């Protein structure tokens, strides 16, 4: 599991402690959420899965006395059961209550990233830090997993492929966690996102522009808890004028040829048969 941690120091601005992720794929949702508030995005595609968990508050403060945040970017190209367990522990903790929150994760990360160590990692940020950063995050997630209650396994779940649900609804949240599990296991693909700004309608508009399945938790009351999102409309292209003309000309040529063969190339009739 590749691990990237974004945070800042007292003076140093927000940057990754280790290497920088190859793409900032989470920006696809930047108009639909505040990354300065807890946001959770999981994406499953042909090459693997990736997760972005933003704005985990730390006990550290910057020079302006602002609480420093930490964001995690995790990804993997293969299924590893232990990694999936760690991610599910994070997602489960994040959505344990009606208001999405990193919960215990903040404290556990603080323990693994004390101020002095973090300043040092920031000062020398780069790929050399990757192993150490990943080890610390893994340790925090492992402790979170060990403290997490076991999944009841029997909860009601939403079966629709794409939907938007109220984050306050327990069934919606447990369905979201199940979708993430399926995505990690490669049984489902697409997006599972918890957003701070967008409502169901905004998510629907976003979904209409893309091809992948999407499940979204939104800060909005939704009658019944959730709504199904319509799949992207498939536009059937009408054949163009060129195609129609090509077919017409080809048909005419074929008919012409058949007529010519019938009238000009008369069959040879044996003389004795007349």
């Amino acid at each position, binding site marked *: 599991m590749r691990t990237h941690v974004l945070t800042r120091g*007292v003076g140093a601005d927000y940057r990754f402690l280790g290497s920088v992720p190859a793409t*900032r794929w989470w920006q696809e949702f930047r*108009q639909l959420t505040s990354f300065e508030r807890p946001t959770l995005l999981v994406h499953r595609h042909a090459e693997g899965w990736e997760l972005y968990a933003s704005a985990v508050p730390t006990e550290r403060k910057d*020079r*302006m006395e602002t609480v420093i945040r930490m964001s995690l970017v995790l990804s993997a190209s293969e299924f590893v059961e232990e990694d999936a367990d760690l991610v599910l522990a994070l997602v489960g903790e994040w959505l344990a209550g009606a208001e999405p929150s990193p919960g215990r994760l903040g404290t556990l990360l603080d323990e693994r990233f004390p101020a002095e160590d973090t*300043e040092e990692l920031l*000062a020398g940020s780069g790929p050399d830090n990757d192993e150490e950063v990943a080890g610390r995050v893994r340790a925090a997630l492992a402790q979170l997993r060990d403290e997490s209650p076991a999944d009841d396994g029997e909860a009601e779940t939403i079966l629709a492929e794409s939907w938007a649900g109220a984050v306050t609804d327990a069934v919606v949240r447990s369905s979201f966690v199940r979708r993430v599990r399926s995505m990690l296991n490669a049984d489902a693909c697409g997006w599972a996102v918890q957003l701070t700004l967008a409502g169901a309608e*905004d998510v629907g508009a976003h979904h209409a522009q893309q091809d992948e399945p999407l499940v979204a938790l939104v800060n909005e009351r939704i009658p019944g808890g959730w709504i199904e999102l319509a799949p992207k409309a498939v536009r059937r292209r009408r054949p163009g004028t060129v195609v129609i003309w090509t077919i017409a000309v080809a048909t005419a040529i074929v008919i012409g040829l058949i007529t010519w063969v019938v009238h000009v190339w008369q069959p040879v009739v044996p003389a004795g048969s007349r």
Partner: protein
Amino acid sequence: MTAPAEGTSLRIGIIGPTRIGKTTLVNTLLRAGETAFEQTDVRMRWADHMTERKILEQRAELEGWRLSKQFNPGALRGTDDAFVFRFVLETGFGGLSMRLDAMDYPGGLVNPAHRLGREAEWEECRAFIANSTVLVVPADAAMLMETAGDENRHHLPAILTTPEIEDVARDWARNRHQHRHEPALAIVCPVRTESYFADNGGRRDRSDELLEHVREVYRDVLKVIRAEAPATRIHYCPVDTVGPVEFLSARWLPDVAGGHPHFSAKYRVRRRPDGHPPEISTAGIDDVLVLLARHLIDLRHRELDVTARHHRTSANDWAAQAVQDLGAMRNVWNTVSGKRRKARRMAEAKRLEAVSAEEQVSGLAGQLLRLAELGLGPRHREL
């Protein structure tokens, strides 16, 4: 014209370093837009849910300060990723409105040393700013004022990223110069100015001093705008984004990585005599709003004026065709074939379009006049 075609937006480019108050400035602007211009029917409001919610998020934090009587400008979360605030400016005439976008982004991107791995993001922000019709430069008033005579003042250009701002301002100005038939507007906005004006609960008026510091520290930024786009109007609009707060003390914190030290200011909340929580009371933001509205309506007015002239010319051409004498045979043919009837119809349609555009031009001119009558506050200066 950079005036928007149907479905597109005008842009406001904001350039400033991390934690300067870009988000707060946008927020204050929108809050003021809801109530300002009462005599004109001009309104500014959010254009989508996301902008509305983003603004409400920060407003809740401001309310929290007010109620807790604890003020700390840093208590507002910084910005992690770029976000486009989308507004609508209703011109107050004939349902005409204009879409307006302002991009907020992590100020750290301005500084090359802090944008490692985020170059593409910065290029997007830079392009947005360069293609904006208005440039806004927020400045930290406390940093400008409280470092005067301080041995660390020489760190200001690095902390305020004035050389980087100069580069972006140059791009913007060059772009504006290419559209020199349009008005160009730049606004320098000192923020957190509560302690330096006596018109919003403050005790001392040090506004002249602040203006001098802005001129001194942003000298090269102003110079480059004047050099590259001489027609640009550069306005100075100091803004109180909170109101009942007072600068208390400042200190320089060393940078652990050995870089430039960090300026840290402390504020106290002004008490109200009745002991009730203080009220958020902005000042100076109406000037920014009036300048923006005038500028944008002026752009739209010019665009419609061009359209109206085009329609009028077209109407006259068609009318001329309808009565043109081309000789007996062709005259008869044009009448029989319906060409003259078509020309008359087109002339009438274009005339109606011209009349409609002219009405809008005249309506917007009226709104511009009313906005001009509103005037600008005593804080405003033209630089």
